[in-house]
């Protein structure tokens, strides 16, 4: 195995045993992510992206194949992983800072010792003055930022993000992408990011893996070598447009094959 790989997925298959016929959600899926790398997975909805991420997060058992994080096989949820969900999934009865501290509590670490760090993270995601607010007092974008701060509080080596901006409006979404890039550059996390937005993937990633329709597997990987930090102007550059075009073509060709 290659040195310095944070995540390694080899020959992964997941079959859901439902009441009807078994559902093959992911098949023959391989992907690996190196330390500090930002990798996006893009694919049509229902192709098995969330399923893949659940297996990596240790929430779902693989039917076949191997998943390892930092060289050791995944057998359940791991403290080295921080997850951001499509919905904010905050606990409505806890205020913002308590929500951010959930992983600390869950891992049985000292909550008081992490309070200052939680406050710093809230400042990093632009919610420094909202620590005592409750989730229902925040907008969707703000809630999602709390979710991001929560995923970072226990300083995980691997950040998993499942379409974290999909429920937001276009403007907020663009701003969140910029902020995420800043946070990623500041903290140098390894990120596995799932999206179905091509521009979002191109803007954020070092590498994009394109998934086939269900049962999903990684069909092609494309390196994105746009210089960092990428800015709003990057979105309008010809290089950006060319990369988007290339990925769209791959995407459509795959959809056509499977149609």
């Amino acid at each position, binding site marked *: 195995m290659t040195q310095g790989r944070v995540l390694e997925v080899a020959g992964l298959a997941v079959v859901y045993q439902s009441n009807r016929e078994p559902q093959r959600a992911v098949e023959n899926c391989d992907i690996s992510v190196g330390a500090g790398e930002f990798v996006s997975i893009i694919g049509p909805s229902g192709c098995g992206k969330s399923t893949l991420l*659940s297996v990596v*997060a*240790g*929430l779902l058992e693989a039917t076949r194949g191997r998943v390892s994080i930092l060289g050791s096989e995944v057998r*359940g*949820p*791991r*403290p080295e*992983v*921080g*997850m951001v*969900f499509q*919905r*904010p*999934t*905050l*606990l*409505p*009865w*806890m205020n913002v800072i308590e929500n951010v501290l*959930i*992983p600390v*509590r*869950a*891992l*049985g670490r000292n909550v008081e010792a992490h309070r200052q760090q939680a406050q710093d993270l809230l400042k990093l995601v632009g919610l420094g003055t909202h620590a005592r607010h*409750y*989730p*229902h*007092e925040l*907008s*969707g*974008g*703000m*809630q*999602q930022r709390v979710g991001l701060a929560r995923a970072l509080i*226990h300083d995980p080596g691997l950040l998993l993000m499942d379409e974290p901006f999909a*429920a*937001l*409006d276009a*403007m*907020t979404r663009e701003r969140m992408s910029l902020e995420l890039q800043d946070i990623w550059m500041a903290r140098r996390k390894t990120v596995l990011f799932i999206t179905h937005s091509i521009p979002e993937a191109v803007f954020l990633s070092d590498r994009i893996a394109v998934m086939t329709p269900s049962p999903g597997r990684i069909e092609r990987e494309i390196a994105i070598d746009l210089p960092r930090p990428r800015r709003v102007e990057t979105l309008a550059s010809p290089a950006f447009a060319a990369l988007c075009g290339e990925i769209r073509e791959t995407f459509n060709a795959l959809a056509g094959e499977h149609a």
Partner: protein
Amino acid sequence: MKDRVTSFIFPALSLLGLVALWHFSIDLFAIPDYLLPRPSAVISHLKTGYIDGVFWPHFAFTLQSTITGYLLGCVSAILVGAVLAESRTFEKCFYPFIIALQSMPKVALAPLIIVWFGYGAASKVVMVALMCFFPLFVNTVVGIRQTDRQLVSMMQSFSAPASLVFFRVKLYAAAGHIFAGLQISIVLALIGAVVAEFVASSKGIGWLIQSSLANFNTAQMFAALLSLVAIGLVGTQTIQFLHRRVVFWEQAAPMTALPE
């Protein structure tokens, strides 16, 4: 502010109208006292009852057995409900019996409970507890089971142990259902207390109503009924107040993703 005033004044006015209608129709239709007492007679019974004090021992007896039975029934309903919602084995062992017991009209058990627990307060407490138990038990189980699965997998993704998921997520998620059950149980608790007193007692508001029947003292019956209304009203209002206070996040705006 204006809403506050009218929501007090309007019911007060209609109550006054109703009492006036009651008062005058007695003379108008020549209704005998034993069928419908005069409002003034009811008020004078309330006065001898609560100012001269002859009702107080009865009121205290019923209130005490209702509150004790309510607490006993509700605490055990929440405990048993929580264990049953969390443990499939426990559910398989006991759920059929609980359902069978639930479909039985509990008031039919009153004579048996008197036999087992005697004529005193103990039988009233047990009857009240039995009445309170089922609706709250069912609500607790349903409340815990309907916890948003995404919240649970979020907790699990951060390696949360099951105890943390239960105490920090499921119990709170069930709070709205539990309070709804507490609300229903207040009324059932009063029914339980009164029924047990009807069957066998030497005290209590239920006993007062029954002994009024012996000499057709309907005015005293009315005064006793009003006492029950007062207990029920204070009880339900208290629970409603606590519900709003404790489950503050459910009255607030729904947790959907809003644009900024």
